[in-house]
């Protein structure tokens, strides 16, 4: 079966969805990401959906689930690159992705993850004092 590639990028995982996903592919991505977060001790997950022409309730729920599971595993999920027409449609559909952090592009998404990491490292340093 096809798989969506997951790249390790420092402390984070990077996923770029380039294909029109059928439901099984979306479910497989959810499972793969969860095991990679644990395997690589990742603190952040960046999902680039700039190539996606639509996000329907199934894909929306997948993004919500990934964010919820990674939060429990102490990793932040940021979804980047959503097309304006997709955002308008999602809201009208009734899906506002409240559990998912979003950023306009990969650069800003990475910055979000790094900010959070820098913050938690500073906390760790404080604890040692």
């Amino acid at each position, binding site marked *: 079966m096809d798989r969506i590639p997951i790249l390790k990028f420092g402390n984070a995982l990077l996923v770029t969805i380039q294909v029109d*996903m*059928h*439901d099984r592919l979306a479910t497989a991505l959810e499972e793969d990401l969860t095991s990679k977060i644990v395997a690589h001790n990742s603190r952040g997950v960046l999902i680039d959906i700039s190539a996606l*022409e*639509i996000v*329907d309730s199934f894909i929306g729920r997948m993004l919500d689930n990934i964010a919820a599971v990674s939060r429990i595993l102490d990793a932040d999920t940021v979804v980047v690159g959503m097309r304006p027409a997709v955002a*308008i449609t999602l809201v*009208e559909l*009734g*899906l506002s992705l409240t559990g998912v952090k979003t950023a306009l592009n990969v650069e800003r998404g990475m910055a979000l993850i790094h900010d959070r990491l820098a913050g938690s490292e500073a906390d760790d340093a404080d604890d040692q004092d």
Partner: protein
Amino acid sequence: MPTTKTDRVAIKISDDVVRVRQLTRALSVEVGLSLVDQTKIVTASSELARNTLDYGGGGEVTAEIVEQGGRRGVRLTFEDKGPGIADIEQALKDGFTSGKGMGLGLGGAKRLCNEFSIDSRPGEGTKVTIARWK
């Protein structure tokens, strides 16, 4: 309402949902829908195709380019011979689901289109028609 083009796609496996989306996109582009309207009807078609598959046990979509009073539009009719919907009003409410979904499919699809009609009889099947006009 004159129909200028008709296509049919069987909905039997989850790959067919992708095929329905692609066909809807192609017809929307042909009609000249705006990008936002294209995205809306493609998203609605994805929701309804999944309903046909998951709740109707599979079925078929008829996709047409239609004309009325000089306007062109895309019309999609999803048909299955599944268990049907006993309470349509309840099924259209957000958050209502009889399965694993979020319960946004039917109501969401209705909001994303200009026209929406549903005909369902318990034990006989369900037919949902949507249209988006330029």
